[in-house]
């Protein structure tokens, strides 16, 4: 198979700085923080044409339900400024076919797989988790309690702390100890910290945030909603500040809970914002549609941005934006005092670079 690796690096560019990128995914250690956002990478196979999926921290698969699901009618997609609306409606082959084909492929390929599950009841989530318990080669379970593409908004578990914790505690109980259970949260709530606290109390080992935000586009030619399903989930760089805000608020309230940050990450600098806000891992989603090589490109860009700011380890940067005022921007300033070759200049260069970003 021919593989062309696309990076932003020009031939002869500096080698990547030595930054220790290993991180925590709900208590489990992964070699780097880059995940694919569920629903944007299928089960990794299509993307393996463009980069080696085993180089990812993990592949997070498209949310799978117990039974086959046709999804919603077309049009399912509308392009928006720096983003898109989607209304797929959890189309998928059902858990058994997923395990036999998609998960089997990921296992053969040697990729770390986080399986995203979706259900319409606590019972369905429980059955999914029980079935996955008997399946080896899973790096984690992401619980999609926040898909916006449902007919009944009352079924978005993540909009209600009680419903969310009922699902998470059922999945946690049914999942093997040592396999992290990660709750995927919706930004469409009044207080995301309240929901985060509820699912952590219910046993979530980590949080994924954010899922798409509910949106609507009207076709001005037909003068009707563009999507067949009327509403859809808004994703892409358009929602990034919303996502960074959610990560910031939850990290401030629950600083020890591992967060997978996502929402419009397009570059290493975007990813760095999430890390600084408190995410210990990150995921690229919609931008994959624009650039199928994005996950590895962004990972390398992130590593470079960390190195440019003097970070030796990714973990030192997690939540760094929360530090008290008066703490200098240079993370290794104390250790490197007296070292002429230290990095403050690089850190400055990094900030300049950021200001130049379009």
């Amino acid at each position, binding site marked *: *198979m*021919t*593989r*062309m690796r*696309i990076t932003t690096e020009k031939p002869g560019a500096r080698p990547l700085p030595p930054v220790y990128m290993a991180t925590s995914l709900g208590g489990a250690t992964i070699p780097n923080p880059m995940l694919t956002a569920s*629903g*944007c*990478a*299928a089960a990794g196979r*299509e*993307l393996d*044409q*463009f980069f080696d999926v085993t180089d990812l921290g993990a592949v997070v698969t*498209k949310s799978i339900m117990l*039974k*086959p*699901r*046709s*999804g*919603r*009618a*077309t*049009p*399912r*997609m509308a*392009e928006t*400024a*720096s*983003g*898109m609306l*989607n209304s*797929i*409606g*959890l*189309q*998928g*082959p*059902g858990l058994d076919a997923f395990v036999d084909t998609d998960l089997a492929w990921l296992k053969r390929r040697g990729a770390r797989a986080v399986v995203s599950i*979706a259900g*319409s*009841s606590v019972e369905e989530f429980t059955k999914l988790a029980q079935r996955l318990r008997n399946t080896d080669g899973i790096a984690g379970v992401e619980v999609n309690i926040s*898909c916006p*593409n*449902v*007919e*009944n908004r009352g*079924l978005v578990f993540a909009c209600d702390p009680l419903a969310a914790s009922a699902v998470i505690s059922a999945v946690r109980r049914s999942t093997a100890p040592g396999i992290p259970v990660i709750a995927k949260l919706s930004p469409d709530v009044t207080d995301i910290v309240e929901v985060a606290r509820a699912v952590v109390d219910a046993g979530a080992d980590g949080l994924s945030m954010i899922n798409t935000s509910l949106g609507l586009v009207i076709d001005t030619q037909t003068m009707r909603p563009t999507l*067949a399903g009327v509403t859809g989930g808004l994703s*892409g*760089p358009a929602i990034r500040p919303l996502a960074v805000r959610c990560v910031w608020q939850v990290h401030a309230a629950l600083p020890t809970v591992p967060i997978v940050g996502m929402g419009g990450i397009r570059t290493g600098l975007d990813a760095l914002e999430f890390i600084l806000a408190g995410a210990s891992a990150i995921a690229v989603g*919609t*931008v*994959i*549609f*624009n*650039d*199928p*090589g994005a996950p590895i490109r962004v990972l390398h860009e992130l590593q470079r941005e960390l190195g440019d700011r003097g970070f030796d380890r990714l973990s030192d940067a997690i939540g760094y934006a929360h530090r008290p005022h008066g703490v200098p921007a240079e993370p290794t300033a104390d250790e490197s005092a007296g070292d002429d070759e230290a990095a403050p200049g690089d850190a400055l260069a990094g900030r300049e670079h950021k200001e130049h970003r*379009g």
Partner: protein
Amino acid sequence: MAAVQVRGEVLSIRRVGDYHALTVVAPGIAEGTRPGHFVALAVGGPASATLLRRAFSIYRVQERGIYGSTVEIVFAVTGKGTAWLAERRAHDPLDIVGPLGRPFALPKEPVTATLVGGGYGSAPLFTLAEQLRARGCRVDFVLGASSEPRLFGALEAKRMSTQVAITTEDGTLGERGRVTDVLPAMIKRSGAEVVYACGPMGMLRAVHTIAEAYGAHSQCAVEESMACGIGVCMTCVLPVIGDDGQTRMLRSCVEGPVFRGDRVRWDDIGTIPADAVGAPVEQEQR
């Protein structure tokens, strides 16, 4: 054949009637391309606010041109993305992914084939005609458009076929009307056993119906709106009947864009047929 993502370079862009023909130097794509394959282009540059890839049938490729391996597409300006593409000039960079999709199926035996193109939907049919003729097939063309400047490849079609029928809705070239007005007579005359078609959904559906009525197979390259072109976004689905008789919502980017006409549930496009695998049965849906 795996697809590749290439940072290509524009070799040339030219006007063809109301359309634009864009040639990109894109190493690695031409080599695996077969008639019916498509490419997906990123538009607007690396900081573009227009994220979704634009998919285009491949018109033709050159594996070893003097500028290296090239891919040529034909497009109409219909929105922001295609307007940006029309402004590209030689040496501009262009991020291109391909070859994508399932190409036209070629017959094992020499058969009589009619190729039907609507507007610039004719683009992939010329390399197809070459390959059919190389297999000893008789090839006829039916090309149609709303008006003469929106026909693509009429001369080329004449050069590589036994018969050509042209239709325009305003009568500026050929017969006034639509491709489906002249297709029955063409099939009758030639005794076509297979009809290949590319164009708008409504045309494909009508072409399939006519082909079936005359006992011909049809191979239709569909146009569904796509976000990625590589099979991960799940937006470009349509109801298609499988070998097991079951209807599934298939992705036109990886399971198509070419489908057997008799397998597509044309009347149900834009819906989820009630008997489709996984169709909603209860009130609880998501």
